[in-house]
């Protein structure tokens, strides 16, 4: 027999009366902190402090290991050693793919002296994956896990609700958004906590276009430390502008927030360690094959002169519309596979600071990496088609807008 909502509550009340004794509840310090962090007056400054702390830790932790250790290891020992012992040598195609493609200087092919320029699978590939991205990913997930396990996330959700409401989402959308800063793949699935199709479409589209992943953030910290702030600002602004537009033009409902705010809790070391391990492992399973594959494919395309050909074909769009060197076509192809790899390859191309900003923005927004793409496909191909249509428009307009800004500022 099925009961109605009221009958069910009625029954529960009776059962509860017979079996449960509610003692006097004593308020604890946890509750007090809980309230301070969810009230606007105190909660918002605390949220800013927490997020700022997050970002600082991310930068310094990753920087410490990458610059302090891995750069030396890879550039001073690993690369020279491989250049020495690997069969073939400069000019050999297999050597170029695996170790060092070299570059032209005054008409002579010279060896690379760092792992950003060598492009080899064993050099650039491993350096990026292990030397740059791994520390970044560990730093990111360490903090994220602490935020998750203490119970801070739902409070952040409440605090940011008003803002996200303006773009058709609600506060809880902060969960997929922050997850996405680690990796877009689990973030796409996490969009399921949103109620309507409209909200999920907005969320997935915004994630796919505007949120750079942890790996990419790590590389950006490394190769464009001075301008990364601007790039992120431009991306996050895009997130809100597009969200606002989508909210206005799309049919469908945007229900409001309705969530539990659980009590704070001391994270358990074992759980934190386990989760960190699972996520780093998961990341590696997705990332390493694609980073290495990306190195191979781009190298082959270079060697077969396909990149040169494409660069010339696309030159009007790239240099004409977006104002970036046509050579960025290589990284843009790599970006299909891995955005981190793409940004790293950008750093080896000669261009102005402003062109660099535009190219990094383009790499970020122009197509979700293949792993994210597959995940979006799994959530529904119709939405994916829609997202891609939006994406194409955004890349063209929002990417072009940046070029326009540089022209107006007189720096293009």
């Amino acid at each position: 027999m099925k009961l109605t909502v009221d009958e069910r509550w009625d029954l529960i009340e009776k059962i509860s009366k017979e079996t449960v004794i509610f003692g006097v509840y004593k308020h604890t310090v946890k509750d007090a902190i809980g309230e301070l962090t969810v009230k606007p007056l105190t909660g918002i400054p605390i949220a800013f402090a927490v997020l700022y702390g997050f970002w600082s830790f991310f930068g310094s932790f990753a920087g410490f290991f990458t610059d302090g250790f891995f750069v030396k290891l890879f550039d001073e020992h690993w690369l020279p050693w491989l250049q020495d012992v690997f069969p073939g040598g400069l000019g050999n195609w297999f050597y170029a793919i695996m170790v060092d493609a070299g570059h032209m200087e005054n008409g002579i092919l010279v060896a690379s002296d760092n792992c950003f320029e060598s492009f080899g699978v064993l050099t650039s590939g491993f350096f990026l994956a292990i030397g740059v991205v791994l520390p970044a990913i560990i730093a990111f997930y360490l903090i994220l896990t602490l935020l998750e396990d203490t119970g801070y996330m739902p409070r952040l959700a409440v605090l940011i609700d008003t803002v996200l409401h303006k773009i058709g989402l609600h506060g809880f959308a902060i969960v997929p958004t922050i997850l996405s800063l680690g990796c877009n793949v689990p973030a796409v699935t996490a969009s399921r906590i949103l109620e309507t199709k409209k909200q999920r479409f907005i969320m997935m589209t915004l994630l796919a276009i505007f949120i750079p992943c942890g790996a990419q953030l790590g590389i950006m910290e490394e190769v464009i430390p001075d301008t990364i702030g601007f790039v992120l600002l431009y991306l996050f602004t895009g997130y809100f502008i597009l969200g606002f537009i989508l909210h206005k033009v799309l049919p469908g409902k945007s229900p409001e927030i309705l969530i539990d705010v659980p009590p704070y809790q001391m994270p358990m070391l074992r759980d934190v360690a386990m989760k960190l391990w699972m996520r780093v492992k998961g990341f590696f399973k997705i990332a390493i094959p694609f980073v290495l594959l990306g190195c191979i494919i781009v190298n082959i395309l270079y060697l077969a002169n396909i990149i040169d050909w494409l660069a010339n074909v696309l030159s009007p769009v790239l240099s004409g519309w977006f104002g970036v060197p046509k050579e960025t076509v290589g990284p843009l192809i790599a970006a299909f596979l891995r955005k981190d790899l793409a940004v790293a390859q950008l750093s080896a191309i000669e261009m102005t600071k402003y062109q660099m900003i535009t190219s990094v923005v383009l790499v970020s927004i122009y197509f979700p990496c293949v792993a994210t793409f597959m995940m979006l496909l799994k959530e529904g191909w119709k939405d994916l088609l829609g997202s891609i249509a939006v994406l194409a428009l955004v890349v063209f307009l929002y990417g072009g807008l940046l070029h326009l800004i540089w022209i107006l500022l007189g720096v293009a």
Partner: protein
Amino acid sequence: MEKKLSEMIYDEEGIVKRIEGGLRERIAGMGIRVGKKVKMITKHPMKGPVVVVVDEARTSLGLSIAEKIIVEVKK
């Protein structure tokens, strides 16, 4: 006195009287129901959400949801 949950002020307590529209099913499992005591923890400005305590559990509701819950407050 009856008022909307959204109109309660900080620290105010009330008893749920009515839940309007289809909202009853939606929040059925969350413990907010007719006859329950609710206490306001915080209200966010600019049409932001509210946070209330029901049975010592904190729940956050968007403003338009809170408007559909009618409570009886003292005085």
